[in-house]
């Protein structure tokens, strides 16, 4: 092996990379989906529940043919719907805070898929991004930093195995899963057995979680044993793959959006921006958007700038400095889209996805500053370092590689 290949192998197998980026993506999408559910609370029954013009029967027909996953199709009872919707808000909040992320990230995926697939026709591009990232996040270690999990690992290292709450949560989820699997409530074959099925994913997560805990029990000495370290390493490798998929997915989004635009005559002509700003459905502030579209120079610059940034993004992410400039430009553009086109949740989803490319040093500085500000506002000058240490991975509690066996 060459040195580069060796370094790549080490990066792949010896650590979970991009912990801060995973945390930012987790926080961003939990905020986006939870905020969306709260926003739609008054209309929830019309969008996803018993009052939907997209009736339970229509949803059944669609899901019977496309095999999408949604627990909302398991019962047409209003209270089943209300329960799932409310639980989704709670799960989003828990994921935002980083509570038991190994479990909540999977539950979050179930909630996102269930609600969106119930009425896929009320979604837009923002929902699509949330959908994909919710699946990918379930395979990451997104609670390593900036989370209640990290706090617990720091304050209670003896509970590294999850403590009693961990065992209780694992048992409860197991009971829930067994009930869904064996009671016959799962409809349309959503939990049908098969190698490439949701049953494999859910039971796989659950069984591996149990095995991991058991291996920790068996070697409850000072140092965890090799099988446990091996499982940790496999989890890191899975996380690394999922983070790569998230990053590449963001590149796909920009590359497709940009490459298809190049072929458009209006984008070539430099006036494409004018049109979305005059579509009634995306025009909450007509005065503002018409002002923005009133002069050829800004319209041209933003039209060409958008295409250039989108097309170049997948190639320039490898250049640190240019990447950061592009990220700032994209986040500004998405913030502007949030206001001018009336798409705040789409924009928040895209900004959260962009955040996977933010530099680690920047994220650490932001985290340190936030926790300092927090500590200062609570108890005067920051005397305890504990709060700031929450921003760093707790090195002392990370697994120890069994060396020299």
């Amino acid at each position: 092996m060459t040195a580069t290949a060796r370094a790549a192998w080490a990066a792949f197998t010896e650590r979970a990379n991009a912990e801060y980026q995973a945390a930012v993506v987790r926080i961003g999408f939990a905020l986006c989906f939870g905020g969306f559910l709260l926003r739609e609370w008054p209309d929830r029954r019309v969008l996803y529940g018993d009052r939907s013009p997209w009736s339970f029967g229509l949803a059944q027909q669609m899901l019977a043919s496309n095999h999408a996953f949604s627990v909302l199709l398991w019962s047409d009872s209003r209270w089943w719907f209300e329960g799932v919707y409310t639980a989704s808000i709670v799960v989003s909040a828990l994921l935002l805070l980083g509570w038991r992320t190994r479990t909540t990230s999977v539950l979050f995926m179930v909630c996102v898929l269930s609600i969106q697939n119930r009425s896929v026709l009320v979604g837009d591009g923002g929902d699509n991004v949330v959908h994909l990232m919710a699946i990918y996040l379930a395979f990451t270690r997104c609670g390593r930093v900036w989370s209640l999990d990290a706090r617990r690992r720091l304050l209670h290292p003896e509970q590294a195995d999850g403590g009693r709450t961990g065992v209780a949560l694992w048992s409860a989820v197991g009971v829930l899963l067994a009930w869904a699997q064996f009671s016959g409530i799962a409809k349309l074959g959503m939990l049908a057995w098969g190698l490439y099925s949701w049953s494999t994913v859910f039971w796989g997560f659950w069984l591996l979680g149990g095995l991991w805990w058991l291996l920790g029990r068996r070697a409850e000495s000072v140092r965890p044993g090799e099988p446990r370290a091996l499982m940790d390493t496999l989890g890191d490798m899975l996380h690394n793959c999922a983070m790569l998929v998230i990053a590449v997915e963001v590149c796909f989004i920009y590359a497709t959006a940009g490459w298809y635009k190049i072929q458009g005559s209006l984008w070539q002509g430099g006036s494409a921006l004018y049109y979305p700003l005059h579509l009634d459905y995306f025009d909450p502030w007509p005065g503002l958007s018409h002002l923005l579209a009133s002069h050829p120079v800004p319209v041209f610059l933003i039209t060409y700038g958008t295409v250039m940034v989108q097309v170049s993004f997948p190639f320039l992410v490898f250049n640190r400095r240019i990447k950061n400039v592009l990220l700032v430009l994209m986040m500004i553009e998405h913030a502007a889209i949030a206001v001018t086109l009336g798409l705040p949740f789409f924009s928040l989803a895209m900004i959260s996805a962009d955040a996977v490319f933010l530099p680690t040093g920047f994220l650490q500085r932001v985290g340190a500053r936030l926790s300092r500000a927090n500590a200062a506002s609570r108890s005067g000058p920051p005397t305890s370092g504990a709060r700031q240490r929450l921003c760093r991975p707790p090195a002392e509690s990370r697994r120890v590689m069994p060396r020299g066996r």
Partner: protein
Amino acid sequence: MAEHPTGTDPIPEPEPAAAPAPDPSPGWSLPSRLVLAAAAAVLIAATAWHLGTVFLAIAPSNTLSQEYSSAIDAHVYPEFEQNWQLFAPNPLQDNIAVEVRVQTLAPDGATPESGWIDLTAQDIAAIHDNPVPSHVDQNLLRRAWDYYASWHNQSDGTPIDPGGPMSQEYLERIALQRLGRDWQGNPISEVQFRTATTPVTGPAWTGAPSTARTTYALLDWWLVTGDDYQGLGR
């Protein structure tokens, strides 16, 4: 990066003269190493498969995506479905308003008709001055119409299976939910839809005409029954 093929590189890369490089994974027992290697192979293959199929699904139709379309679709649909042609290749240049009128049944046997009711205008009114528009106003009717249009022949308006009948039921129920059961005291017996399409007048500096003509497309009358209201809360 890669090792130099000896045939093309006249100067062989000097190997470090010192002790051989440290084992990349010290400490793992042989079974663990085998597990790691197998897991790495599976994970890399799965990641490559996922990214490859998603790429082919979103790329323009090409020889590879046509050749392997069933394998690609099997993996990508439904949960990894995606479409990022946002405002591309050209942004939408029409404002499409969905309008509806109803026929009712009066006690004397007459069948009075309503005028055209602009459902889209209700959406737009709810979006105006709203920093956080609801999906109910921004997506529900708009995308229901897109869905209807994509499952009906553009030339003669006949439905395409299986989405055609489903999209009709959906559109009708959206209108009925907003209209209720009665119009001016008489029960609604039939509804008819039309779309009013108004192109966005292009920017003045491109020399585009400053006024636009609205064109209308009329659908058939659809019978309304009590079942159509099921679950609508009306």
